């Protein structure tokens, strides 16, 4: 998809251009292959990311969903090679971005990728901004180092970026400090900074979790319209199933360091084929459905990653487990091999009982 620069975008271009094609092109923009990131702790080795593979096509929004400690944030940090050493280390796999393996780049080359080609938006903007530098200084730094702009040009551009994300009176805002911004304004600024160098991929780690629901809606709409307008691909890391449903094209569900289910958002929500995904969807109360007398939680506690059971990590909490689950780890396998969703859109699940989940669910009187 041809990319235009921010400067060429007039306000009249707000209408959505044709959506980046859902089915992935032959070459993904980002192809993560068998990534493994481990942390050495007193309690033993924690396999925070334990051999995961996923990809993002140009212009696409892909979600990485899971609960705290499942490895979703560490996955993003691994792509940026920002995992805190010496405790954390990427011990295996490849992160192929535009044909190059980022894990094999030297630090100088990697620095040119960060911010310039892949940008990141964090959950809590206050802790990822420097409190003693003005907004203007923090925004122009990347423009000057990555794009070689003069200080004057960078300043003009910074003001344009702020107005693009809906911050009024940008000239005055540029000389202010982060504490003078509200939470929603700070997150708008983080988005402006992330888009400053026109990256082709933005990694957004719980970008709206710290925000109120009406501000969350504003920020997500902004991210969606900008990513479409500018053709930026997005990896959205979140635990919020509603946010994923509204914004993601494809979904990867993570549990205990592994991807346990993947598919298009529609497929995952309408036809979940992993008991964990099913459990997550059933445990949340929903405003669009009649109130249920009782919620259906997932029983038990999230696993301790330094002491995982053998076999499937979810088995101890799983209502569908069979003997095999405690012995053999199920690989990601396609669902309904002859189904309509072939190619890269295919629905995969890491569950020995994936094919029987529907029947078992119906027998148990599950919803839908």
């Amino acid at each position, binding site marked *: 998809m041809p990319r235009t620069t921010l400067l060429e975008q007039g306000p009249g271009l707000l209408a959505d251009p044709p959506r980046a094609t859902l089915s992935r092109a032959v070459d993904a923009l980002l192809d993560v292959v068998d990534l493994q990131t481990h942390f050495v702790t007193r309690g033993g080795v924690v396999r925070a990311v334990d051999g995961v593979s996923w990809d993002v096509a140009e212009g696409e929004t892909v979600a990485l969903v899971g609960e705290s400690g499942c490895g979703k944030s560490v996955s993003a940090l691994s792509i940026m090679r920002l995992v805190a050493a010496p405790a954390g280390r990427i011990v295996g796999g490849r992160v192929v971005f535009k044909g190059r393996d980022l894990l094999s780049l030297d630090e100088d080359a990697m620095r040119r990728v960060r911010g310039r080609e892949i940008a990141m938006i964090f959950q809590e903007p206050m802790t990822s901004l420097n409190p003693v530098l003005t907004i203007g200084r923090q925004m122009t730094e990347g423009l000057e180092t990555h794009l070689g702009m003069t200080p004057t040009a960078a300043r003009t551009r910074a003001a344009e970026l702020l107005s693009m994300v809906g911050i009024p009176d940008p000239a005055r805002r540029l000389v202010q400090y982060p504490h003078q911004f509200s939470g929603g304004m700070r997150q708008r600024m983080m988005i402006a900074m992330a888009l400053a160098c026109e990256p082709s991929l933005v990694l957004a780690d719980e970008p709206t979790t710290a925000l109120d629901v009406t501000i969350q809606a*504003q920020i997500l*709409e902004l991210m969606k319209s900008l990513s479409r307008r500018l053709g930026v691909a997005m990896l959205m890391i979140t635990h919020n199933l509603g946010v994923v449903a*509204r914004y993601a094209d494809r979904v990867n569900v993570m549990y205990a360091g592994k991807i346990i289910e993947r598919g298009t958002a529609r497929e995952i929500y309408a036809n979940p084929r992993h008991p964990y995904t099913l459990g*997550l969807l059933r445990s949340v109360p929903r405003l669009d459905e009649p109130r249920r007398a009782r919620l259906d939680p*997932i029983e038990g506690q999230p696993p301790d990653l330094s002491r995982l059971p053998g076999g499937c990590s979810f088995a101890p909490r799983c209502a569908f487990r069979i003997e095999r689950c405690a012995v053999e780890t199920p690989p990601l396998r396609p669902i309904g091999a002859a189904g309509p969703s072939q190619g890269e859109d295919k629905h995969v699940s890491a569950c020995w009982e994936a094919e029987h989940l529907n029947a078992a669910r119906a027998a148990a009187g599950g919803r839908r």
Partner: protein
Amino acid sequence: MSTPRGGTSEVLLEVRNLVKHFEVGGGLFGGRRGVVRAVDGVSFSIGRGETLGLVGESGCGKTTTGRCILQLEAPTSGEIFFEGRDLTKLGPDGLRAVRRRLQVIFQDPYSSLNPRMTVGDIIAEPLGVHGIVRGAGARRDRVRDLLRKVGLLPQHAARYPHQMSGGQRQRVGIARALAMEPALIVCDEPVSALDVSIQAQIINLLEDLQADLGLTYLFIAHDLAVVRHISDRVAVMYLGKIVELADRKTLYDDPLHPYTRALLSAVPIPDPELEARREHLVLRGEVPSPLNPPAGCVFHPRCPIAEDRCRSVVPELREVKPGHWAACLLA
């Protein structure tokens, strides 16, 4: 103004025209003096055995309202009747007796439990302090009962909070509150720090305990779906005021206040097909500062249907339909 109340059950708690202002600025570092109107004239009542949900965004005053009821903050003005007595007029001795009956569960089970005490000691301590259970052996038995009641095992008594998961810690916080045999529990965002799969466990537990023990809850939260699930009636707060109050079904099916409508519209539904068709009412702007709230209706700068008079006339919370209260001139 009359106090919005529902049902025919006996009133356990009645809040009348509660106001809590905080003075800011001045002092050592100077700065402009001002008054934050955190809670600005809030009235509601809760019947025995009922759950009232209190929803709103950060800074709307919902937590301060809870803290005033718990007497953790001294209200600037207003009355809080609990079991027939006005808490704001009680002396230290009277309060001590009442506090037993009035407990709290906090949002963050990580910071509300003493990390140096075992779970058993955390639960047993108030039993001794308030003289509810005398004798170490009897207290141990009571702790064991309470642990079982909240879905933990007797052997958890020997653990420290850091040895437990978030959900287990919240269960300890609930056991500690139950130890006092309270009538009312203020639940302040009790599940929002927990993982999605664990939230449902805790909500079910709270509902079971209510059914077993006849508890009354003030359930403070920002998650509208969770509040709908657990509440009998719901009050929506904005900038220190209640803008709408009704029974659960009425409030969610037929909201009258434009802020309630916007809140409900902003919640994403976990269903991509539905989301693709849904119209979203995205509010402009942000919540104004409670240091300098807008004149007239506090919601008017963001309101999609505001008229001229909304800028000057303060709407009273009035009973628009039986049991359905709204503070909107256009409702």
